[in-house]
């Protein structure tokens, strides 16, 4: 296999995300700005390399890496890292990185371990409509991940602020209002994307499966995700929920996404490969 560099590159990327996470963590704990700069630089290099990885993959296999759960994971890892990097550049807020970086790191590591080239691929998975459906849902997951991280930070900071323990989080994190609004907007964007993704998926299903689409476990859990975030949006719109309760809902939503992505895909059979 002449194009065998993809596997080592996948591991290298995991290492890149890992080390940049360590830099963010060091910057967070020791409050050294230089560490944060190293982290950002390394993350930028990693995402650029990752883009190269994805493009090469697409070039070699003549398809977007979406056919298997590990491929989707590496794509999701790249989405999360890139979206975060853009946000860091726009907002100048590095504290997020410390909390978010484990996600691309873990996703990329699992993806690298399970990545297999030359996997036979069903023809429907090369379809453009399918690709749009999958990418929309993956982007939604990335947005949910950001919302989750912001909510997690909110809950942690809320604890410090209300218990009056002025610790490291109090010093480092942005304000509660900022976190809450960030989580909210990420959630709203994610909800829009997942709605779009589901619509595209159902259209695709109707088109491909002559029997009409059957309810597999994946469809059910995804629908569950949609409901959770729908509630999130609804409560914000109608009840004016802000702050802690929203944060808990967002955390629950993302845990549900993880459950559906990792557990359901691997242990329950269905027509979705992820």
């Amino acid at each position, binding site marked *: 296999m002449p194009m065998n560099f993809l596997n080592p590159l996948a591991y290298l990327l995991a290492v890149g995300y890992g080390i940049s996470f360590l830099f963010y963590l060091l910057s967070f704990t020791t409050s050294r700005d230089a560490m944060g700069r190293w982290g950002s630089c390394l993350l930028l290099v990693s995402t650029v390399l990752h883009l190269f990885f994805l493009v090469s993959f697409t070039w070699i296999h003549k398809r977007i890496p979406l056919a298997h759960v590990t491929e989707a994971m590496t794509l999701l890892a790249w989405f999360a890292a890139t979206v975060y990097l853009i946000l860091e550049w726009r907002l100048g807020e590095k504290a997020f990185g410390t909390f978010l970086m484990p996600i691309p790191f873990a996703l990329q590591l699992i993806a690298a371990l399970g990545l297999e080239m030359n996997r036979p691929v069903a023809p429907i998975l090369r379809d453009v409509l399918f690709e749009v459906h999958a990418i929309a849902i993956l982007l939604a997951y990335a947005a949910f991940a950001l919302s989750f991280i912001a909510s997690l930070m909110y809950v942690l900071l809320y604890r410090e602020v209300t218990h009056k323990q002025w610790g490291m989080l109090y010093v480092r994190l942005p304000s509660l209002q900022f976190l809450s609004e960030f989580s909210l907007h990420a959630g709203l964007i994610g909800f829009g994307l997942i709605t779009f993704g589901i619509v595209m998926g159902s259209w695709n299903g109707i088109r491909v499966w002559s029997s009409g689409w059957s309810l597999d476990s994946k469809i059910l859990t995804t629908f569950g995700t949609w409901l959770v975030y729908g509630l999130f949006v609804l409560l914000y719109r109608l009840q004016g929920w802000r702050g*802690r309760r929203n944060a808990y809902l967002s955390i629950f939503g993302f845990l549900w996404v993880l459950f559906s992505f990792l557990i359901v895909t691997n242990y329950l059979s269905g027509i979705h490969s992820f």
Partner: protein
Amino acid sequence: MHLICGSVQLADAPPDSGHTGIVTNGMPGIHIEHYVRAARSKDIDEILPLYVDNRIELYAVLAHEKHQDVWEQLTTQMLGRLHGEELLHQQTCVEHFFRRFVGLHSTIPGDTTVQFHIEEQVSQVAQWGGIGPVLARILREAIETAGEIHNNTHLSAGSATVADAIPEIIAKIMEQASSVLILGRNEYVLPIIESLAEAGFERLFFAHPDMGIAHELALNDALYSLTDAHIRLPIEWEQRHEMLAECDVVITMLTPEQISGTKEATPCITLREAQSHLDSRKNRPLVIVDCSSEGGESEANIDPGFYQQENVFIYTLSDLEKVVQQNIQRRRRTIPQAQKRIAKRAQICMQRLYGKDRYLFDGMIARSPVMHTVLELTRRAATSDANILIQGETGTGKELIARAIHRQSHRAEGSFVTINCGAIPEDLLESELFGHVKGSFTGAMSNKQGLLEQAHHGTLLLDEIGDMSLPLQVKLLRAIQEGEIRSVGSTEQRTIDVRIVASTHRDLEELIQEGTFREDLYYRLNVIRITVPPLRERREDILPLAEAFLRRFAAPRRSFGRPDQRTLRLQPEVERCLLAYEWPGNVRELENVIERAVALSFGGMIRIESLPSSLCQQPAQGQVTPEQLIQEAMDQQYSLRELEAQYIEQVLKASDWNHTLATQILGISRTTLWRKMNDYGISKE
């Protein structure tokens, strides 16, 4: 040059700051002025007494290390003994000053107010002439160091006072809070208003059971951080609950007992009355801070119902104190980091003081405040690339300044070219400046590069610019404006990048009036103007300059087997003569006078006979001799006391109340002068 510092720890009682910040150790009435005056002996160049962190510190720049005992005498005289304190020298001294300045030794590490106090005191000392180029430089470096440390470490991070902790906590909860309701009044109210105003709170509402106090608070103008942008309104006490709908922050300073007019002790805001207004906030966060001084711990100050509310955050005084404590501890932890930076900066500072740009005060002797400002302006002008006009009488050192500018600027690597526009005939000047090509006029045997071109990427000093002819002024203006020149007889345009420094002893504005100088060229050249004062306006510099010239001219004479000329000194009468003279030829004249005197002198002393006769005869022209004076006084039967008092006062007036100068004219010591001034009740008023 030698730097030294010693300090005295004061008793706990904060000293009376009536003495412009500097206070004495059981010696009341000693002001900065006295320090500076006492130090103005020839061996202490600069002095800075500083009251900081409850200590008196005495920084001094000595001409030489061996003069340390002079300084020690002074400190003993001024401060009593410097007990148990080690003296700091050179770099350690600079480091110590930096540490004080940055606030490393203050009770609150990184306290930025220390910086302001020091700067204020320094400016006062400077008014009395205690600060010279060395200390001014150190202060500048200290300001830079402080900036670096505040930007790169967390030495000044977080709030250090209870009042500052309030906006800090609010910032962790809300992004943009702008309205605050202040209930009641106690000793925290003013610092809190100030810190809120500084943090960007624009609308401040005040309520108090006594409406008068609310009005008073709203109209208080004693706070410097309040601007017109701040809205301050007194609110009826009954309206306080309604304000909850609007304000994001409520600060209470009243305990239930303090609220008059209520039968039972109730907190100043109650959930029962506030509920409907709270609901209208739609879950926007609300911060309640209980600052009532006595009941910081008491839960009764705040209606317990508020604790159950969503998005209501409640803090008490002790919470704020905890934040402050934590911040101070965190600041303490960054001290080693700051130390390292300070050590590095102090080293750089020493290198600068002894290094390349030392000539700025080494080559130019400046003990007078006027000259310090000139040198400071020079230093700053050098860093820019603007054209500079140096004005000053002949012999004041205009070219030295121009050279200093060149060497300090980024053009230092380029060449420094000077030309005296008054000394060269007009047509020759043109070809000198712009160059010429072979055969362009009779005698142009070859191509010649002009000075403007030679100074490419460098500096061109146009000396006596006022003597330049009008047509040439036009050409020069064009060259400056376009950045291009054309040699005489050539058709080729060449681009030049030259900084022009022009100097003149004439008043260019007057020349413009007369029509002999072009106004547009004047504005081109006069981007920055440095006016070098004549020597008579900086008499403090006369003797140091004379001594410097003495050293310079005396040195080569040793080789002729004469007595050791390094001990050459000025006779007191000579000093008096030099000080009294008008110096129309300025420093250059002084230089020549000293050179002549050295050549004519015998033994280790410059005597009055060695000076040119014109210099000393000046007072004698049509003047009375002491005998004549006394003759007149004899008729009036004046007492010796009256005469002496009159004479001292006149001399002081004539020397513009410069005591050093006066003592030199009178031929008495400073202490004697001081005593006599006190005796006769002579003072500046």
